[in-house]
């Protein structure tokens, strides 16, 4: 059954690409520079608002504070510092995604600055994609900067350095966190195409929690029956599976990250992200601006 579903999915995707092949190339040629300009503008705007700088400083403070817990044994410290450090990077990324992402489109619409951009030869999908990629660049910059600081903290700590620190797995865990943030960012953009900034922030936090309770919802599916089971199954299918990207507890407990499942998770996440962005474009196309 699953093979049939996969085959149907692939046939549909190929059919769409074949049907649109004549317009894809010229549209892409036009889209790349426009998307790049919108993304650059988004980054410049966020830098002016100093959200990133504040987030970065707060996260550094959090990373350092865990470093100074001295009364734990070396094994405990390794676990606590690694786990909480990686969580701090994810947490800071999540806050930045919500508080920057929620402002990107609604503010432009409310201030009517979107008129000026869309009046130029910038299509709506280019506007949405540009905003999303700008957000992705900002989150990426924050994650990279925090990761460098975190790696330094770990390497300079002799107890942790000699406690079996695996920098490769650490990097992989950070990459997985970043992909999770990219998916989450696409959801924030989707919500922001429909509603106001405040609502986007509230729904954004809700989506993060739901995505992080993936295994709990999955567990509910097996315990429910009949129509309830179908409903929970539908919710499980469409919800973001952010928990799969959490490799923090593996790294901090010396469990190697299984590479093939992790790559499959990234692949699945990118497909999900593409679907969410398509929905965001479709909704923004219909919105009265």
């Amino acid at each position: 059954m699953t093979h049939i579903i996969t085959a149907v999915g692939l046939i549909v995707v190929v059919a769409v690409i074949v049907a649109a092949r004549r317009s894809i190339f010229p549209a892409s040629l036009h889209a790349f520079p426009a998307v790049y300009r919108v993304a650059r503008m988004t980054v410049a705007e966020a830098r002016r608002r100093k959200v990133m700088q504040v987030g970065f400083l707060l996260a550094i403070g959090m990373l350092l504070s865990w470093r100074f817990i001295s009364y734990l044994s070396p094994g405990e410290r390794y676990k606590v510092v690694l786990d909480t450090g990686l969580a701090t990077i994810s947490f800071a990324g999540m806050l930045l995604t919500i508080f920057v992402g929620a402002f990107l489109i609604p503010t432009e619409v409310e201030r009517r600055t979107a008129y000026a951009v869309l009046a130029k030869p910038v299509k709506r999908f280019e506007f949405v994609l540009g905003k999303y990629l700008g957000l992705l660049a900002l989150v990426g910059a924050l994650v990279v900067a925090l990761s460098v600081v975190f790696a330094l903290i770990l390497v300079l700590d002799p107890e942790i350095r000699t406690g079996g620190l695996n920098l490769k797995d650490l990097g992989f865990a950070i990459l997985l966190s970043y992909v999770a943030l990219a998916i989450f960012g696409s959801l924030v953009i989707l919500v922001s195409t429909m509603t106001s900034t405040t609502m986007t922030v509230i729904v954004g936090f809700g989506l993060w929690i739901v995505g992080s309770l993936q295994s709990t919802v999955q567990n509910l599916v097996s315990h429910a029956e009949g129509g309830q089971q179908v409903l929970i199954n539908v919710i499980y299918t469409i919800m973001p599976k952010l928990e799969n990207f959490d490799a923090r507890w593996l790294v901090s407990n010396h469990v190697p990250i299984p590479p093939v499942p992790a790559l499959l998770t990234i692949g699945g996440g990118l497909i999900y992200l593409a679907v969410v962005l398509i929905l965001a474009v479709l909704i923004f196309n219909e919105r009265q601006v």
Partner: protein
Amino acid sequence: MNPSRWTNRGLLVLLALGLLLGLYPLQAKIDKAMPREPVVLRDLEGPTAVLIAAVGGFRGVAANLLWLKIDELWHGGESWQMVPLFRAVVSLDPHFLLAWESYGWHCAWNLNNLAETALERRAWLDQGIDIYRDGIRANPDKYDLYLSLAWLYYDRVKEYDQAEPIYIFVRDKFPDRPRYVTDHSLAHIYEKNWRVADAVAVWRDCLRYDSKDHIARSALEWWSQHWNDPAWRQKLLTDENNFRRARGLPPFHYGQFQLQGVLHPTPPADQMPPGLPYRPQDYGPAQ
């Protein structure tokens, strides 16, 4: 109505649908390959910050916060209050081996000591065993909890026949095991049962692996002198039973084929076990 606009929309909807259909079976594979433990809400204890962290995708952080709280309770001597927090920690982070080890140890050693009746004491021992078994189920590829369980049987419950297969399993499955724990304990179990040939075989293995293993050398020297010594066999039995009596455990004696194990008879004088007498030159330099 602009037909091209509608076509574009239709194509985008179809593309999203096709991608979702392709993702559905892939997601099932991912879920199987990256199994997750659901957050068991009834197991969650502690301050609100911990609950928020747990349901907000930061289970490891929640577990760490509770771990710090456990440390505080331990130093405050509040042993009973630590139990639900231990349960919450291992529920939040089932790969936290140190938490499993401490949880089992706390029940089987500390709470067992604090218990007032024999029934309670036995219940805390059983609780310790169950905890280690749960931990092994969550971490089957790490030897740590196998060794903790084997040590619990060996040192605390004194059921050597339960400890022996676990040590053998670890010896066979984990080449990177700490030999001074696994192999030495296994040899000691054989010694306690007066299984001279088995004990000597393990000590010889230890020396072949590491010629500087002084404990193995001393043990082989000792067995060379006493393998056929009924007085020492009797002394071992008396010491073991004195220890058991102090702990309130049933006695251990030759012919008792229950849980505690079997004390083997002294080998006949003309059947010296292979590997004895000990000759240092057979195992290379000791230093």
